[in-house]
């Protein structure tokens, strides 16, 4: 397949990947710092190239419910937003999980709470990995740390969404959304045909019955015992997902005495802090969770268990640190270093935090 190297913003990479991986529809609403997703799609006019539908909805509520309905018909559909808008989508994500539908939702996080700031942050970790909406459900969460991963995780996100019939989130932030980097992009892949969907998505309400029973997509079940059965089935999927699809990257951990645990743009900054520390002879590595849910518990437990101390670096007041502590069962001391409210830490201050932790 023909590949092409392009310089683009993280948000543009999301949009370009959607067009090229055969996404059927994008429904979005402007919000800083992710508006380039919708802008790029509108400029590229994918409806002329692949037949992909792009619509600026009246609100995030409408966007996520358009995604819900599109997914109900077996189409590969997505939306994107930033923190306050993503909060508005939580009810819809719960419906998507409850009706067991595949969908992709990108959150380019900005600092909160409230209207907060438009600067980058990682303060939506709890919201994304611990629920957000109502009911017992999980959001499969991918955390890109480069523009290339913004591009790659769109198709991966759709694959996981259809594998588990569950919503998938790409939890990015204002750094990865706005920064420009080189990206290797693929050729256009064809969208799924309606015949393919009929064959592979028997759960979809396509409107085309051709003799088969009519299909109902709903998350409503008035009989509590049946609803418990639905929940049990969903939980089984989650156990399978934890088993098969927890992803991470380990950098210079083999000889390390200490590790950083960080994701997304914080992990990028930690890579530089690893260089600074190793130049001064401190043996430090980095574990970068790529899926935040399922959290790579086994890897963090195994690698973290060998360390003297762990430093969890986040652009938040301390959210992922809870999962790190649970993974190592508090057998290894875990310290947090965070900047938040839209402030991005420098490699030097992370290195200083490491030195403080060690002494």
């Amino acid at each position: 397949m023909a590949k092409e190297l392009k310089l683009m913003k993280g948000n543009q990479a999301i949009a370009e990947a959607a067009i090229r991986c055969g996404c059927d529809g994008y429904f979005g609403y402007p919000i800083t710092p992710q508006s380039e997703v919708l802008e790029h799609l509108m400029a590229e006019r994918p409806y002329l190239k692949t037949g992909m539908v792009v619509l600026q909805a009246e609100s995030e509520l409408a966007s996520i419910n358009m995604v819900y309905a599109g997914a109900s018909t077996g189409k590969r559909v997505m939306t994107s937003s930033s923190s306050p808008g993503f909060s508005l989508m939580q009810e819809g994500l719960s419906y998507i999980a409850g009706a067991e539908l595949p969908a992709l939702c990108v959150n380019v996080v900005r600092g909160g709470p409230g209207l907060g700031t438009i600067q980058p942050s990682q303060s939506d970790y709890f919201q994304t990995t611990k629920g957000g909406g109502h009911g017992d459900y999980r959001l499969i969460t991918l955390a890109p740390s480069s523009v290339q991963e913004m591009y790659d995780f769109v198709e991966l996100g759709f694959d996981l969404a259809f594998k588990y019939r569950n919503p998938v989130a790409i939890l990015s932030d204002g750094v990865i959304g706005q920064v420009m980097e080189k990206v290797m992009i693929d050729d256009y892949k064809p969208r799924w045909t309606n015949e393919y969907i009929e064959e592979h998505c028997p759960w979809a309400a396509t409107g085309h019955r051709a003799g088969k029973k009519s299909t109902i997509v709903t998350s409503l079940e008035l009989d509590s015992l049946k609803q418990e059965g639905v929940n049990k089935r969903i939980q089984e999927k989650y156990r399978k997902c934890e088993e098969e699809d927890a992803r991470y990257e380990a950098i210079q951990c083999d000889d390390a005495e200490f590790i950083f645990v960080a994701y997304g743009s914080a992990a990028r900054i930690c890579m530089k802090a690893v260089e600074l520390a190793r130049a001064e002879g401190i043996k430090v590595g980095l574990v970068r969770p790529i899926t935040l849910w399922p959290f790579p518990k086994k890897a963090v437990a195994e690698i973290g268990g060998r360390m003297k101390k762990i430093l969890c670096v986040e652009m938040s007041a301390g959210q992922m640190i809870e999962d790190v502590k649970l993974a190592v069962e508090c057998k290894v001391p875990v310290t947090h270093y965070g900047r938040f409210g839209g402030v991005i830490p420098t490699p030097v201050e992370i290195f200083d935090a490491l030195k403080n932790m060690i002494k």
Partner: protein
Amino acid sequence: MTREDIIKPENLVYRRTPVLTDNVMHYCPGCGHGVVHRIIAEVIEEMGIQDNVVGISPVGCSVLAYNYFDVDFVEAAHGRAPACASAIKRLRPDTYVFSYQGDGDLASIGCAEVMHACNRGENITMIFINNGIYGMTGGQMAPTTLEGMETVTCPYGRDPELMGHTMRLTEVLAQLPGTYYVTRQAVYTPVLARKCKKAIRQAFENQKLHKGVSFVEITSNCNSGWKMTPVQANKWMEENTLKYFPLGDMKVDGKFAPNFMERVSTFDQPNETRFSLRSK
């Protein structure tokens, strides 16, 4: 006529449409939902589109509408049916798509979605059942509750100074350029039910034209919520509701119906009619 004669196909005078399922409807006796369901199902059968239609059910009394139609159905979140219908029609333009909503769902929590779907001119059919009350949750005030009318959340009658005015949303939607056909119907007499069927048929046929939204409001009763017998409720509706929500076409083939703008131009006049359920 013997039994053998009666069951001959040529002597058939009535049968239930196969587009309705065998499930027993949960609607209260006397409610308009059952009639409207049957009309929609008959239209789908007569147009031969049963294998090519997706319905969107709301939250409210008709949340379980999908149990009664033998067609593909998607159950929307409260108020979001027009957003759902918009997406499905755009992703599957060759499918007939209709949304089915009550007045709490459409005119209150879903006001933004219905306005914008109508404004975008989505090529869909919208069915709006307006009975002036929240039925499923136990008879609370809706935007369409008449002034002076008593509900469990306005037990002393709707006071417009405290609770806002009775909303004629359909008249607003008719003025949006994205609507192609807008009408208000009722189903409480056989004649009206037949007229309503014609309107719903038109609203489905219009999807072939790609000209925008076809919107059918059906002014209905809620005898449980209104705390009346079905016969009393229909009489009350005729005497009160239909004064504020008169039946008839508002927009046909993208053009305002005669007298529509004239009627709208009286909306700045004070509403002299106050209603009371308790006194009836």
